[in-house]
């Protein structure tokens, strides 16, 4: 194992975790914003 392998392994791990976390968050909170957007568009 060379240093690059460790580095890329860490980058891949970080990207999977951060993407999963952010995706759950934007889908959950995005629903409330979607409803609010329609309320605003209706006015």
């Amino acid at each position: 194992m060379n240093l690059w392998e460790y580095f890329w392994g860490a980058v891949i791990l970080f990207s999977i975790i951060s993407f999963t976390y952010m995706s759950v968050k934007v889908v959950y909170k995005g629903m409330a914003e979607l409803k609010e957007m329609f309320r605003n568009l209706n006015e």
Partner: protein
Amino acid sequence: MNLSILDIIFIVVYLVLVFLSGTLVKKYVKGIDYFLVAGRSMGFHLGLLSLMCTEIGMITYVYYAELGFKAGFAALIVAFPPVVAYIFLGSTGFIIKPLLEMKISTIPEFFSRKYSKGVRLYIGIIMAVGGILNFGVFPGVEANFINIVTGIPKEYLLVTMVVLLTLVLIYTAIGGMVSVIVTNYIQYILLSFGMIFITIYGIFHIGWGNIVNAVSTELGDKGMDPFFPSLLDGEFGIGFLVWQVLLWVALLVGWQAISMRLFSSKNSKIGQKIYTWSGLMFLSRGIMPILWGIMAIAVVGTDIDSLEALPLLIVEIIPSGLLGVIFAALLAASMSTYASYLLSWSSVVSQDIIGSVVTLVTKKEMDSKTQLLVSRITMAGVMIFIIWWSLFHEMEGYLYFYLNMTGMLFIPGVLICVAFGIYWKKARTLGAYLAITFGAILPMLYLIWPTEVQDYASEIGWGGFVVALLGMVIGSVIQNIFQPRIEGESV
């Protein structure tokens, strides 16, 4: 066919759901501002989600996977420049804050306010050419992808693509940005699941050790170290990184599909926040598909067409019962990008080319209803063009570089004109014309002679920005000497 009945049912249900939700929002489109930027009512999370949907398409997966397949782990470095650009612009507000405060709908609109209507028309034409040439390779590449993953015979591919694009066209033409945001929500759920699943399942199914060994065997040190043999001479060395950071800063300012998301946000603070956090999301947007290309080295070997590495990997590793879900996820990525790009490039044609010509000739602007009609007709025109273009265009070199260079036709000129227009009081119309023209010359060389100049892609890339800057300075200085701006003159 590689798809089971269950797979097909899942895909059909997804398509019906997206189509219905996209068309039912028609009543909310009360005018052109609602059609183009959803009445500027988009919040932070929705904005982030929608931006990701726009910029993650099947084509994104294919070009990133091609990089990973050809260059191994070293290609992962390509995922970093967008992160730098997003976080820089989002956290500082450089360029984007003043743009948001101007409340414009398209970037060329800035040109008519800051320079002249002629410059707006000129950049609109170059933008439309670059953007549509970029968009024009999507159907061909994706049809090939769909052919391999689903097993749909090649003779039915054109019909499949036309049906798919027509569905997207109908709901986008009806509901504009409102439809795009609603359908993006459904598409993002599938898209993100697909990305996470393929990545984690692929690593466990193939084995990390096998992936690393395959890269070491096929590519050696070059497959691990992006700066091999040196920081200066490496394929992804300093020249490449400088170009990519500049390119991404410019894309975030001038790429219509991205900037329209920015302009749809509620206020400048939310716009900036969307950009800052997009940096983190864009890291994964690059890392995951590049890794899929790297996995393909271990699974399907290197003796295949590099653009087919990803679909072959998917067919090889995804179990048949799950193929429908994964295919729907890939389709979601594809359709969300088509919807946004159709809206974006047709808005440049309708607002900045047709609208500008009508205003120049009749001396008055089109009313909102006519603008809506023109936008919808233009959208259909753009769709017909990209299908026609993809039928005969043959790719040479990296797909990633082709897409970069079509964008580069206008991106250096846009960045320089916008940045100088905001921050340099002496920026003038002649400078804008020269910046746009000079900036387009080098990328044009790449598009005309890709084989001959592909080794100089990085130099062409950052060189485009340097000559655009020279154009702005030279043109503005000349105009300021021979036609000084009158004190208090509004531009």
